[in-house]
């Protein structure tokens, strides 16, 4: 051993891969493992940037053949119209099959009750679980990333769920090398997270490198918003603003895209990908901290929702 290390340039090696190439190869490997080992996989596709990147990776993984998976969207009934339009356009362009599980239908049928705070994110778990059971999906791809949240930091790439979709963090299988164990009993399924190791910045850099189209709400635009708990929420018929909440027009963009009732916009004048990347690289807030009301509930809010079968 030498106590004074020789400093060598790792990037000089002709066989070094860029970090985006490494992450892309890893994700493609995960998609192909699932295609090789499962009968009925499905991709959770919300029209948010992470699911858009997932679909892009799946398209590359099996080209020139079509993606051997269907898509599933859990529609809260409060989704952004721009995002739904993007979703339908994408499905049509690639000739994909889309299943929609509708929270609104569950509410209308009396199977779910609207929460007092109007937030529908936690209501997605039941329609999601029942869609998985009904279609007998055995592998469900999610766009969750470990950098998003500390309970997600402990998540496996292949995450076993029981027939109620429940996650038990203490009974997770150790995941070694690139050997993913997808064995499961009938009725159980495996949640698969191909972009586990990506950060928000990686996702944006990859979108820029690949020239992937996104819904326009990810870029700065004028919008009528009001302030609730320090977040800019969009005004709309989902239930906002309440009395005393002042609507104003601001230049904003969305860092994450979920249910309108709990997804906040950030002040921004980033109208291009490069500008968005620069903003994110300089941001001192995590994307969930800046934009998600549902994660502000408690220290273990995400862990609790995941245990119940959330994404």
């Amino acid at each position, binding site marked *: *051993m*030498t*106590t*004074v*290390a*020789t*400093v060598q340039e*790792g*990037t000089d*090696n002709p*066989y*070094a*891969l860029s*970090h985006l190439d*490494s992450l892309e*190869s890893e994700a*493609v*490997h995960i998609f*192909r493992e699932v295609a*090789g080992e499962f009968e009925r996989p499905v991709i959770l596709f919300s029209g948010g940037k992470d699911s858009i990147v997932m679909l892009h990776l799946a398209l590359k*993984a*099996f*080209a*020139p*053949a*079509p993606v051997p998976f269907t898509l599933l969207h859990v529609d809260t009934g409060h989704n952004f119209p721009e995002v739904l339009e993007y979703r339908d356009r994408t499905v049509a362009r690639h000739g994909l099959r889309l299943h929609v599980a509708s929270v609104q239908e569950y509410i209308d049928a009396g199977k779910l009750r609207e929460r007092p705070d109007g937030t529908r994110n936690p209501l997605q778990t039941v329609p999601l679980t029942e869609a998985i059971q009904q279609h007998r999906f055995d592998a469900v791809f999610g766009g969750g990333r470990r950098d998003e949240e*500390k*309970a*997600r*930091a*402990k998540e496996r790439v292949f995450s076993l769920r029981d027939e109620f979709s429940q996650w038990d*963090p*203490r009974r*997770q*299988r*150790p*995941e*070694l*090398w*690139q*050997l993913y*164990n997808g*064995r499961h*009993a009938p009725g159980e399924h495996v949640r698969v997270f191909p972009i586990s*190791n990506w*950060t928000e*910045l990686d996702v944006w850099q990859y979108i820029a*490198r690949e020239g992937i189209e996104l819904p326009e709400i990810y870029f700065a635009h004028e919008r009528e918003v009001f302030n609730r708990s320090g977040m800019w929420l969009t005004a709309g018929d989902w239930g906002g603003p309440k009395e005393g909440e002042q609507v104003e027009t601001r230049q904003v963009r969305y860092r994450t895209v979920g249910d309108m009732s709990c997804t906040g916009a950030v002040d921004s004048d980033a109208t291009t990908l*490069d*500008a968005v*990347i*620069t903003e994110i*690289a300089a941001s*001192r*807030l*995590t994307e969930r*901290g800046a934009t998600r009301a549902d994660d502000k509930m408690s*220290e*273990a809010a995400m*862990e609790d929702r995941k245990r119940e079968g959330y994404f």
Partner: protein
Amino acid sequence: MTALTRHTEQLSTTTLLRFATAGSVDDGKSTLVGRLLHDSKSVLTDQLEAVEHASRSRGQEAPDLALLTDGLRAEREQGITIDVAYRYFATPRRRFILADTPGHVQYTRNMVTGASTAELAVVLVDARNGVVEQTRRHAAVAALLRVPHVVLAVNKMDLVDYAEPVFAAIAEEFTAYAASLGVPGWGSGGDPQENWCTAIPISALAGDNVVEPSSHMDWYGGPTVLEHLETVPVSHDLTACHARFPVQYVIRPQTAEHPDYRGYAGQIAAGAFRVGEAVTVLPSGRTSTVTAIDALGESVDIAWAPQSVTIRLADDIDISRGDLIAPADDAPSVTRDVEATVCHVADQPLTVGQRVLLKHTTRTVKAIVKDIPSRLTLDDLSQHPAPGRLDANDIGRVVVRTAEPLALDAYADSRRTGSFLLIDPADGTTLTAGMAGASFAAEASATDDAEWNF
């Protein structure tokens, strides 16, 4: 070129380093990890506020940076790290994936998990205590898992007056132990033994030599921990490696546009493949020639590990998931008898005679545990013959017979194609992590097997 574009381009040419840390709170591991994240500006304001809030509500004055990595309620309640936590941070030169693992002996399986994909392991020692049992165990895990680089971080130098002789003695003792592990200059990318380990004197608490060079240790001329992480080679000359391509999936569009396309999709596990190369398909032994390599939308002449590609061959031979494509003049032998060092990772034991599934690359086959000849104590590498069973966190030797032939490499030659899992066929539990072939040099010379000539 604008400053912005330069920024983006620079980021897109950064490489990725996966590394693992092992140690306990007592060694200052959380402080080191916290400082790496904090000083590289990877902890964001809302995360820090959450940690400060949680620390205050526990009656602690200073923010406890360990709370950044303890993500589960049970961990926070018990104040310990149970599971591997993955952390992400970046500098302008490199992106890092850190597998932060607990250090105690009852969490050896978590350490093994973190080390299995790591290209570098940070082993922490307390400068006041020097090399202790736990240090030897962590070094042995890194050697066993063939982690290519190790950093010995001699921490708490502030508490020994930043004295060079203290550091030098610890570094020397560790070197001697590393030599006894017989860490070879293995084919899968490890540093030659003399370069395997880099010792760095640090104080994680005071920040000496973690991100910024220390002003207290002029006698040390080497890199800080972060400088070393940024510059350690993540790749090596792959042409010297045995090229291996496990087939994951056969792509056959059968469309009007691509009526005859037949490609073998997979991730190159080791080495490099070229168009025009003669290859053998295992276990069948059939041969063909590479006619095209599709690298995710781009046709290339050469591709290397760990790229995900689709390979096309000249001949329409029967190939399916689980087969291995290798150079015709450098194919591994095919066997149904596996001897390996394993780490038992499940709560239920592994016993002689047990029927299991063996998952190797993209192939899963039935197998039976024929023998468990020994159990190994990692603290002193002592062997305990014929233990009869392996319990959670045990390291041992096993002999397994498989129902189908496997194209298996020695783990020392190829981490990816020399590793496997044993799985309980009844409930799918991952039982055991296996590494084919001999584990340490001492064993290799004892068995006098020319194949394991380190």
